[in-house]
């Protein structure tokens, strides 16, 4: 039997989940900056895992995003087409903070004097207009060396159509300066828009050395501790990559952390046969959500780092699972503005000082504090019993706000929960209603420290089908990594119109990327029969700009059926997303998108032993008063999650406690435990 291990390095804890003989176990260990690999090995030791028996080791880390947000990448140079070195700094020229005449643009990651130009030019069809003057590169290299540049990005106009010049430039750079780190735009993105591609290339170069060093250290540390294979690395697109391919293109790891949980939701959905899920991850500072439809996650290449309502941010055109994130988590602070309106977040008390209840000097009440004084969180077992909160101090913090608003402290606590919930409902609507999906067709799967506290209220508000609290909700990112395959996304701008004769053109357009995918997997040691392809196109009505991603119909269909079906899928998709369809308007393909999975052998998850009856009383550990709605305290049954077994059922009001989270079951809700320990909460009987 195989032993599979996944590790997820977070800010505070390194989570490790493993499957041995189909049984899942998890441990948490401290994260150990700056030598994160040590924490990974510590977790393995804590779990008593013999790495030499591990067949599969997956790893998610925040090394890339940390290097960018902490500005700890290397000094980077950029080479552009002659005349265009300033594209990076001009950016798109927009001012998101529209009324602010002292707005500051995001400053570029490469200063102007380190942005050098090379004579070369392609036209918009990819034809060579000016041959590349490789002889001029020596001078550029000399300057970069004099400035202690450590990594170089290369981005030429129209390289998305024809990478020939970039390939030549990279080869020549490596010849002239073998030690330098170089990456060119076509290695990362084959979509048009030069600013976005340049930004992506620059950030890729910027994080190249630190990421490679980290991955190498991780590999050696794990090997030294007995691991016989290289670890696989979690990517932002919802798949894992071999260590080598992550090394070559590290920007693909940028959202490696958050996507793990979303994938976990998709994977758990697959295990229990539920393909329509709104995945919700509530942490300390933010809530993140993403929609899974028919088992598929949504991918976007419109990811922009550090973008806010007031800042333009930095575009990164690497495939990332489409996640909506808002500044509402357990640590979000409640505050009152000058006109006496109550707000929750986006400022967070973080882990230091943390919520008032932590007793570490925090004086501003947070969402967690509101959950505590309304009785949802057990004050006797707060933070896993590590902290004994002083309830009177927490109440006093709400009282300060209550006096300003002329209401009671409990009113404010409920107000905080209701406002936080409304903010999260808005985020969930962004991924569902606003994209034409009806929440009634979806289950809300909640995880992270705070997900289970809020999920039932949110699902009720949205009319979701039910709530699912999966097992291992506290280490769900790592759990998700155990369940997935290798994944590569090939997105290529390729414009052509759809007409009755287009089937061959559509299929042919994929030929090159399919063989590239097979070749890439061959290099990973994955046989061709283990490679699974999904073919998508990004299409639009002729003349429009923004596209709808649609999956190609069965390629075995005859020409006219194929095109009919393709057109219908497009019209339907367009109507779903944008509320209208134009049946007579021509359809144009802009990008082709191949998703290639490298299928890995995975042991099936074993079902847990079922309970002999539906009665859950053996898991009942007490009762306490919980304030579910203002002024209506109810006696709620308290259950121990560890003791709940498949097949058990009970009704709300109830609270289910486990070491990493608390599940709130509202009056009128009904809970069922599934075969793998997941809780299914039906909102109405």
């Amino acid at each position, binding site marked *: 039997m195989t032993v599979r291990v996944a590790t997820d390095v977070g800010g505070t804890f390194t989570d490790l989940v493993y499957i041995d003989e189909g049984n899942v176990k998890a441990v948490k260990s401290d994260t150990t900056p700056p030598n994160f690999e040590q924490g990974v090995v510590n977790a393995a030791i804590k779990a008593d895992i013999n790495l030499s028996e591990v067949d599969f080791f997956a790893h998610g880390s925040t090394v890339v995003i940390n290097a960018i947000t902490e500005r700890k990448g290397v000094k980077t140079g950029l080479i552009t087409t002659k005349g265009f070195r300033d594209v990076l700094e001009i950016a798109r*020229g927009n001012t998101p903070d529209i009324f602010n005449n002292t707005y500051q643009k995001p400053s570029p990651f490469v200063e102007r004097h380190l942005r050098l130009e090379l004579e070369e030019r392609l036209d918009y069809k990819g034809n060579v207009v000016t041959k590349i003057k490789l002889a001029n590169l020596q001078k550029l290299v000399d300057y970069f060396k004099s400035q202690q540049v450590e990594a170089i990005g290369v981005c030429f106009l*129209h390289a998305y159509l024809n990478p020939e010049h970039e390939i030549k430039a990279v080869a020549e750079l490596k010849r002239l300066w073998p030690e330098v780190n170089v990456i060119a735009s076509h290695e990362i993105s084959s979509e048009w*828009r030069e600013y976005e591609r340049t930004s992506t290339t620059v950030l890729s170069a910027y994080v190249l050395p630190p990421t490679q060093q980290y991955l190498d250290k991780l590999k050696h540390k794990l090997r030294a501790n007995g691991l016989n294979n290289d670890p696989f690395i979690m990517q932002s697109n919802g798949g894992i990559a071999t260590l080598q391919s992550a090394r070559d293109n590290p920007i693909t790891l940028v959202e490696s952390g958050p996507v793990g949980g979303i994938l976990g939701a998709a994977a758990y959905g697959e295990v229990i046969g539920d393909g329509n899920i709104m995945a919700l991850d509530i942490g300390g500072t933010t809530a993140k959500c993403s929609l899974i439809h028919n088992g598929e996650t949504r991918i976007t290449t419109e990811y922009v780092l550090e973008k806010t309502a007031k800042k333009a941010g930095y575009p990164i055109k690497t495939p990332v699972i489409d996640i909506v994130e808002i500044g509402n988590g357990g640590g979000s602070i409640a505050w009152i503005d*000058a006109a006496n309106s109550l707000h929750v977040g986006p400022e967070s008390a973080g882990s230091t000082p943390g919520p008032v209840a932590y007793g570490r000097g925090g004086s501003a009440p947070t969402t967690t504090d509101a959950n505590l004084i309304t009785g949802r969180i057990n004050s006797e077992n707060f933070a896993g019993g590590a902290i004994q909160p002083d309830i009177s101090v927490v109440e006093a913090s709400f009282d300060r706000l209550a006096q300003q608003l002329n*209401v009671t402290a409990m009113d404010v606590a409920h107000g905080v929960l209701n406002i936080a919930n409304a903010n999260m409902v808005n985020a969930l609507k962004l991924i569902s209603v606003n994209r034409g999906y009806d929440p009634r067709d979806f289950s809300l799967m909640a995880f992270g420290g705070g997900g289970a506290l809020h999920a039932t209220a949110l699902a009720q508000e949205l009319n979701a089908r039910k709530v699912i609290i999966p097992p291992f909700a506290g280490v769900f990112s790592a759990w998700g990594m155990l369940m997935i395959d290798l994944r590569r996304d090939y997105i290529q701008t390729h414009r052509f119109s759809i007409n009755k004769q287009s089937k061959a053109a559509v299929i042919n357009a994929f030929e090159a990327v399919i063989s590239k995918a097979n070749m890439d997997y061959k290099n990973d040691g994955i046989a061709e029969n283990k490679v699974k392809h999904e073919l998508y196109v990004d299409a639009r009505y002729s*003349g429009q700009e923004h596209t709808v991603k649609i999956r190609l119909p069965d390629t075995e269909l005859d020409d006219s059926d194929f095109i009919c079906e393709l057109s219908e899928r497009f019209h339907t998709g367009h109507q779903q997303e944008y509320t209208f369809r134009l049946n007579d308007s021509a359809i144009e393909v802009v990008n082709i998108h191949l998703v290639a999975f490298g299928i890995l052998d995975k042991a099936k998850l074993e079902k847990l032993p079922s309970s002999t009856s539906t009665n859950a009383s053996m898991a009942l550990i007490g009762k306490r008063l919980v304030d579910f709605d203002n002024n209506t305290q109810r006696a709620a049954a308290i259950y121990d999650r560890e003791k709940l077994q498949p097949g058990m059922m009970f009704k709300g009001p109830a609270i289910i406690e486990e070491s990493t989270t608390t599940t709130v079951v509202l009056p009128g809700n009904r809970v069922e435990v599934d075969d793998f320990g997941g809780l299914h909460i039906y909102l109405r009987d």
Partner: protein
Amino acid sequence: MKKQVDIFTIEIIKNALVAIGEEMFLALKRSSKSPIIYESLDYGIGVTDAKGRLISQGNGIPGFIGTLDAGVQNIIAKFDAKNIYPGDVFILNDPYAGGGTHLSDVCMIRPVFFENELVAWTANKAHWTEIGGKDPGSYSADATEIYQEGLQFPGIKVFEKGIANQALLDLIEVNVRLPEMTLGDLQACAASLKVGEQRFLAVMEKYSRDVTLTAIDKLLEHGDLMVLEKFKTLPKGTFEAEDVIDEDGMGNGPFAVKVKVTITDKLFTLDFTGSSAQAPGPINCTMGVLISAAREVFMGIVQPDAPATDGCFRRLEVICPAGTLLTAQRPAPVSSYFEAMVCAADVTRKALADVLPGIVTAGQFGSVCTMNLSGTMPETNEPYLLVEPLVGGWGAAVGKDGESGQFCVGNGETSNIPIEITEARYGVLVEQYAFNNDSAGAGEFRGGNGVVLDYRILSDNADISSFFGRGITAPWGIDEGAAGSCNYVEVFDQQGNAKARFSRASRYPLKKGDLLRLVTGNGGGWGNPSKRSKADVLNDVKNGFISAQDAQAIYNVK
């Protein structure tokens, strides 16, 4: 229902209402067929209450902040309530009436009914690429009457009870140059109004009519309270400034723009009395636009930390007699209205610069710097029309240099068209898109840099109309900071010989092989250049923003 709606529910409804504008904004962006909408985001969209008071607006352009509510109020005044039905959509672009700017900016308005009662309106205003008139792109550097500038929609129904007015659509189709794009924009704009309607009705269904209406009142009141709070920190008194618009494209000018700003404890009054009479050429704007300009400046200065609603503007008053170039009367041409608008906003900031350091900047390049390039694609002979505003340099402020390569202050989310898209759609090869390497705008904090954008023309029979302001008078410096530089267009033949230089021109002919160079200016500096830190000057030299000679001559740094 509890005895009284609790204050937190009101908060939640307020947030939900404010979110509607943003949702509508994204819906229109994604479904439009015009690059000026989907790339330049040259539109605003939102919701008003039944009386036309602004509840929520998603903005690409701050300058549209006074136009949606005015457009709705215009329709309310014009139509008897009994003639307004569910499913109606009104269309409006009359610049002299509420809601109009220039003819290219088309306002579409839809009533929202809840249980047969008109409870709200959704509206948008977007720049349509083509609306007819004598010049491609529907704005002219040399129009003398509005009748030359395109189709006028005086607030009429384009849909009634959900049914399109086919006669009107047919009329539009034959009167514009790119009917597919224009009618596509019409569809996209109409569809985006439905998104707002659905969201608004969902709020009302959930919380009831009465509670929602209460929340709307509270939302507007909140805006006013937040503004009043900020009034405490504003300087009180009367502040004046004057500036010029150099030319009107017809050889006339300069034109004066004057303002007297009076700030009291509770009122912010802008009086533009004394500004020049309306110009013969199309640089005029109308009263509604002037109010929008005032709102934009007001929001930037007051910074109420509240979403822009009708409530935010209760303390703002705008005065200007009719018939000036800021309050033009029919049939004055207005297609370049943004020049007067930007100038009115800038001159207001200029009046306040000394008393609001760090909040207001020195002069910016100060023009939308837009141009229309039309011609035919070299291979297919299909006509193309490139309508594009340009980025330039912003003014410096206390504590910060001006931004470089940014759209004009007041252009909001307008974004440039990627070169790779420009070349695929239009018959040009872009040879350069770079900062202008001009040392103008020196100061302790220096003005931001403008850009140089070079187009090689790939086919004969192309022409350009340019609408660059500040071709003669550079943007001002403050507190001994130097003035910035001017905006202009240059044309060279294939051999590199200069053929022409101008800031405003109409249909200047271009041949295959010509090089069209568009240059935008730097913003003004703030503070004496000798106070600039040596390290900053050396860094500017290293990065090529200041030449070594200028470092010595202007900044005294070797």
